[in-house]
Structures are given as C-alpha cells and as structure tokens.
C-alpha cells in the first residue's frame, strides 16, 4: 500500500491549507489592515516614480509645447500692453474730464462772470519769472489784463495775447501785486510774489487781529481783479512793534506746479490806473 503521508504530500497539504486559510481570512476581511500597511509604501514609491517619469517626459517633450506657449505668451503680452495703453488713455481722458467738470461746476456756481476755458501749454523760460502760456488768444475774445482763475482760486492775469495763445502772469511772479481782503479780520492788504515763487502778505495794518489760516480773498481795489476770489490762506505772521504794517507768508490755494487747465474771466475789464499813479 502506498503511503499517502509521504513528506512531499504532507508539505503540499500544509501549503494548500495555508493558502486556503489566507484566502478565507482575506475574503472575510481580517487581512485588510495588514494589506493596507504593506501596500502603502508601495503606493508611495509608485507615485514617486510616476511623478518623476512625468516630469522627465515633460522635460524632453517640452520643446514643441514651449514654442507654442511662447507664442501664446507673446500674443497675450501684446494684448495686455494694448489694454494697458487703452486704460492709460482712458484714465487721461477721465482726468481731463474731471478737470473740465470741476471748472464747469465752478462756472455754474459763479454765474456773475463769463468764462473761457483754456489749457496750459507751457511755462516761462526764465526761472525768475512765473508765467504760463495758455492755448486761447484774441480769437477767443481774450484781452490783456483779464483775470485767470481755476475752480480753486486766483491764478493771475493775462499779460500778453496773440491770436491763438496768451501769456499769463501768475500771482507768484515777483512783479505781481494783488490787493486782498482778509475775510474774518475784515482788513485789507497786498499779496505779492517773489522770484522763487513764494507768496507773501504785506500792507496789513499793525493793529489788525488775524490768525494763522485766515482766508485771503481779492478785494477788487485797483480794478485789476474782481472782488471775492479765493487767493489762499495766511501761513505765518510777522509783526514788529516799530513797523507800520504786518507781514506774513501765504499758502496759495492753487497748486501752480500742477496747473493744467484754467478759466479766463472774459467779462471783466481791468482798469488801467497807471496815469493816476504819481
């Protein structure tokens, strides 16, 4: 009789029983934690290899895609540049429109005067003189001596006119003198410019009571400017007991370094009092 329990058969039997047991345990779910623990490093390793491969593949497969992307990038950059220039253009138009609307608003709020809007196209060549050039002239009804303002306040007056341009003497010019009135103190004085563009207050009576920040308006005396145009505010005061008048420095309300558009008061005729001056 053949012996069924030979070592070979016994080993095969044990192997079959072990495999069957593992299968039963796996089907019944008892081996899931063991699988997950043992498979997780493999998945990580696989992911690492896969990523490196894809990177490697992209690197060597990129020249064709790079050229395409560069082309698209160039096109998009052009579009962005074009859009940016359009934005800048629109912003400039908006800024110009804002200025014009503000000037229009000022004109509506001061209906006693007639205005001619003008653009500043240049500044005086000599640093000692504070003048600007505007793009309106006698063809637009501008004449010598007409006051020039902005929505903020007094700018100056027309000094010379040709057909399509005019030269405006600013109140910061050394040769400019404006008769003014201090609003709260209700006293009169003079505002004059300087070669450096600074504005000073003079000829204020020594006994006048006024504070820093006092509002300065044109008085209309002398017939050079219409009354009640905002000039600026008192910045500082100097009074000497032995002096006849108080003096001070003035902060002009208009930013003369950034003037871009002005209004010329066209229905005001300056009075020439030169023959009356002794």
């Amino acid at each position, binding site marked *: 009789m053949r012996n069924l329990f030979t070592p070979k058969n016994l080993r095969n039997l044990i192997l079959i029983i072990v495999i069957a047991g593992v299968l039963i345990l796996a089907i019944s779910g008892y081996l899931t934690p063991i699988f997950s623990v043992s498979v997780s490093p493999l998945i990580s390793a696989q992911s690492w290899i896969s990523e490196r491969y894809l990177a490697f593949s992209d690197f060597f497969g990129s020249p064709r895609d790079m050229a395409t992307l560069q082309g698209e990038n160039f096109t998009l950059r052009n579009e962005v540049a074009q859009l940016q220039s359009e934005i800048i253009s629109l912003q400039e138009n908006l800024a110009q429109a804002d200025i014009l609307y503000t000037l229009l608003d000022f004109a509506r709020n001061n209906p006693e005067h007639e205005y001619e809007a003008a653009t500043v*196209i*240049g*500044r*005086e*060549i*000599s*640093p*000692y*003189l504070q*003048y600007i*050039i505007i793009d309106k002239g006698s063809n637009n009804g501008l004449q010598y001596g007409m006051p020039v303002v902005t929505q903020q306040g007094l700018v100056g007056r027309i*000094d*010379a006119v040709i057909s399509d341009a005019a*030269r405006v*003497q600013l109140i910061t010019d*050394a*040769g400019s003198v404006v008769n003014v009135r201090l609003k709260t103190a209700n006293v009169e004085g003079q505002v004059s410019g*300087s*070669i*450096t*563009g600074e504005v000073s207050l003079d000829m204020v009576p020594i006994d006048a009571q006024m504070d820093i920040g006092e509002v300065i308006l044109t008085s209309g005396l002398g017939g050079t400017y219409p009354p009640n145009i905002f000039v600026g505010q008192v910045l500082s005061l100097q009074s000497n007991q032995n002096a006849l008048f108080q003096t001070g420095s003035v902060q002009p309300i208009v930013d003369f*370094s950034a003037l871009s558009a002005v209004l010329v008061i066209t229905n005001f005729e300056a009075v020439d009092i030169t023959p009356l001056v002794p």
Partner: protein
Amino acid sequence: MLVYLAYAMSFVLAMMLQYGVFSRWMILSGSPDLVLLLVIALCLHQKQRWFWILILIMGGVVGFVSALPFFLPMIVYMAVYLVSLSLKQRVWQTPLLAMFLLTFSATIVVNFLSIAVLFVQRIPFVFSEALVRVVLPSVFLNMFLAIPVHAIVRELSIWMNPQGAQV
C-alpha cells in the same frame, strides 16, 4: 539753405521742449535753458557765413515769446556767437570743453542780466536768495544737459556738413 532749415527746425523743437517740459524740471527755483544750450552748441559747430542772422532771429523769437525784455535774449545769443568764434580758434580741439565754458559763462550772464532787469524794474528780491536758489541750480542743470545737447548737435552738424577723412 538746408542747413539753415535744419537748424531752424531744431530751434523750434528746442523751444517746444523747453516750454512744455524743461521749464518744469526744477531744482529749488532754478531750471535748465535748453534753447540757450542749443544756441551755444550750434554756434560751436556751425560753419555758415550768415549764421549770425539766424542767431538774431532765434533771439528775437525767444524775446517775443518770453516775458523777458525783448532785447535780452538777442544780446545774449549774439554774445554767445561772438565768443564762440573766438573759442573755436583757441580751443577748437576740445569742443566739449568749449561747450562747458560757454554754457557756464552764458548761464551766469543770462542770470545776472535777468537780476539786473528785476533791479531796474524795482522788483524787490534778495540777491543771496537769487544766487542760491536760482543761479546755482540753473548753472548745474545747464552743465548737466550740455553734454547730450552737444552730442546731438554734433551729430546733426556732421550729418548736415559731410566732410572727407579728417587728418
């Protein structure tokens, strides 16, 4: 004739740039004078016989547009022209040095003539303030701009007056 036309066009361009741009470039209260620099550079590079007439016209135009007295730019530009004739004979081998020399002296002269005009017109000013805040910054800016203006005018001059190989 073409040379005069080119010089006149460059003068017009310089005027526009001066009034539109360079008058706003300020250090303290001083500003550069591009037109003066152009006149100096043209005087140093010109070879035309009747160039002084163009200089007079340039002075007249500046005197007309500017609030300065009409005669002042004409006098200064003619003085620059006459001095440049002498300088070209003496320091002709170093035109940039002549440019610097003329720029410095012409700027000083223009500034002091402007101060003299203010004095005659009885406009009050403090001389030391004018010197520190206007004259010195203007001189610095003009000296600074003298180099590019000289280079541009030199190229223009070479282009308008082609010459053979120089020994």
